[in-house]
């Protein structure tokens, strides 16, 4: 597979994951605003910005609707949902012949819908956010059922799960002061709704309840979102899926010297598979979560060195 194609598929997938994550975060927090809450509007939206990695040029200015508009529609901001969808579609256009017609169709329709002039006035924002999430879910379904699960598909998986891992780590970090400082307490007053909001930001509320019932405590929430083996939005699941895809790519491409990449992924995988929640709580949680983000960036760089941006001299010698 051409290196450029791998690059485009990887980014197409990352951008869509980012758009979906942003849409869900906004949707959850907009709906939480409808209830009385222990969290002030400022606390809430500063936390959202933190969870999104402090997007450049977007600041809390006292108006939640202006803020959500900037994060959803504003194409001046490269991290807005519409910008991410445009970038994903642009990447897919570069590899139009590599993806299935059905995939292209779905992504192109989503693009045409969100860039339609006047969309902001036409539909209400929660409807818009829901549409974006649904369409991206459909895209993933179409991808799984119409594209060969070969190297290209694996790069899509890598893009999706590396983005998810980094975003989940950042989301958990944003909740540090609210939750992880006192991991065993029970929610007071309206805090329950906020905690539920965190789980819903990772589509995890129902899945959490199946394991721990509806009793929420910070340590269990952290355990679930960090260490659960089976839940697709947990960090452990994301890292395992990414690692699996990287191994498949390595087999498929027959690439030598994949050892550094294997090691990086393996280290994260081991940390998340063999730590108990008590081990994690005994450490500095913010440091653990930041370290995961640093590792994800290192994995990204190594993928580039190995598959995309390698030096010609080394390739000819090998």
């Amino acid at each position: 597979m051409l290196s450029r194609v791998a690059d485009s598929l990887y980014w197409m997938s990352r951008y869509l994951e980012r758009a979906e994550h942003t849409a869900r975060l906004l949707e959850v927090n907009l709906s939480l605003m409808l209830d009385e809450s222990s969290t002030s509007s400022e606390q809430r939206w500063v936390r959202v910005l933190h969870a999104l990695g402090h997007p450049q040029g977007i600041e809390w200015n006292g108006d939640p609707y202006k803020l959500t508009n900037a994060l959803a529609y504003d194409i001046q901001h490269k991290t807005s949902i519409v910008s991410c969808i445009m970038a994903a579609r642009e990447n897919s256009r570069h590899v139009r012949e590599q993806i299935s017609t059905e995939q292209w169709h779905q992504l192109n329709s989503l693009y045409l819908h969100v860039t339609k002039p006047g969309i902001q006035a036409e539909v209400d924002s929660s409807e818009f956010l829901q549409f974006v999430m649904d369409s991206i879910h459909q895209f993933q379904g179409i991808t799984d059922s119409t594209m060969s699960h070969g190297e290209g598909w694996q790069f899509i998986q890598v893009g999706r799960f590396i983005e998810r891992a980094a975003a989940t780590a950042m989301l958990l970090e944003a909740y540090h002061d609210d939750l992880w400082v006192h991991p065993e307490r029970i929610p007071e007053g309206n805090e329950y709704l906020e905690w539920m909001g965190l789980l819903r930001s990772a589509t995890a509320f129902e899945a959490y309840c199946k394991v721990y019932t509806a009793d929420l405590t910070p340590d269990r929430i952290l355990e679930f979102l960090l260490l659960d083996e089976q839940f697709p939005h947990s960090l452990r699941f994301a890292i395992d899926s990414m690692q699996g895809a990287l191994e498949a790519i390595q087999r498929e491409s027959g690439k030598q010297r994949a050892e550094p990449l294997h090691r990086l992924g393996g280290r994260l995988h081991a940390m998340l598979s063999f730590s108990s929640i008590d081990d994690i709580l005994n450490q500095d949680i913010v440091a653990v979560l930041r370290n995961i983000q640093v590792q994800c960036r290192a994995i990204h760089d190594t993928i580039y060195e190995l598959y995309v941006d390698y030096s010609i001299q080394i390739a000819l010698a090998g």
Partner: protein
Amino acid sequence: MQFAQMAMKNYLLDHAYDEMFTAPGELHRHYELLLDHFSSLPSDELQRRKQAADLSFLNQGITFTVYGRQEGTEKIFPYDLLPRIITAAEWSKVEHGLMQRITALNLFLKDIYNEGLILRDGIVPREVVFSCKQYRRQMVGLQVPRNIYIAICGTDLIRLENGEFVVLEDNLRVPSGVSYMLTNRRVMKRIFPQLFRSYNVRPIEQYTQLLLGTLRSLAPEGRPEPNIVLLSPGVFNSAYFEHAYLARQMGIELVEGRDLVVHDNIVYMRTTSGLRRVDVIYRRVDDDFIDPLAFRPDSILGVAGLFNAYRAGNVSLANAFGTGVADDKALYAYVPEIIRYYLSEEPVLKNVETFLMTRRNERQHTLANLDKLVVKTVGESGGYGMLIGPHSTAEQRDEFARRIEADPRNYIAQPTISFSRAPCLVEDALEPRHVDLRPYVLYGDRVTVVPGGLTRVALTRGSLVVNSSQGGGSKDTWVLSQ
């Protein structure tokens, strides 16, 4: 209103040949079934099907890029629902003529880049060849695989008032539009399955497979399983949809200049599993931009060293470098002589009468009749750099007169031909629009003309410009098997 009545009543014929009507209310026989079928549809059904077709083009991203505009740079290629029908007898002449033409032009290219017999014999003046911007000195004496310079061509034909097909232009560099021919047919079969079945239309879907076979036949010796790629300038090129479409249909890689590297005169592509050798390149990048070392040094679309790899025989290109000299608009005037010279045959398809500005008496005739003639810049395509005399202003004519005097080699003139018209669905009515025809010819193990082609439509009333960049559209083209 019923379709047939609508067709009969408001459809004005003029002196141009009409593809459907012989006289007001009278049809060419091969259009009878079509009119019957359309008449049997409920009145709003046509509009409904048209919308379905448009939406299908947009959602599939079957678009082209219009240069020089900021917003809305992606447009769908407008599509007309009524097919253009060509009878078996008409087609057999077109086919024969195109095969003859590509054969002669290939021999011509081989000759001028090698012995130069046709120049020595004075059939084509040396200065016409050597002054052509597309003449490539680098190609002199170079051995081209199987002596095939033009493997892929798309020739523009028009119909004169008497119904005869003539050649308007040869496109021997990187002709485009074949993907529209193929997707038009797919849409047409989906929205009018019964009508399609009732005609015996010759299939065209084999084109991509024939193209692949043609490319494979050009592979360098000793490469039994050649790696074939399509080289595109990238996603901002107006024909990018087509590049992606053809690559996917052939199952070959779509590459851009930055995907290829040349080392020791061997071309490689950069893949996730390392560098992989490339044997045949179907290039959709012009000569000028393809290798910054051999041609334009400011090009970033190309591959440095590609020409040397080609010269070393390690990679084949379709089409070869330097084929543009044979579709130069001034050289066009000599093509009938070229056919007679190499094949000792009379040209089956005629040319449009052409005045060369380098000949003094033809230039004077042109300057005196600028309001009646069409003037074309020899190196331009896509409908740019043209003066259409009857539709021009006095200032435009003065401007062209100045340009012709300053650089006569750069211009030719032709009579304004009212090429044939075909009925198109314009809003709710049938209206005549001028059309041309671009059939596609492949030259590999043998010469093949795919039965059909792209019928381009000048969608503006009365306009003679069919190019997609200038508001043209297209129709499906049905060649009947009997």
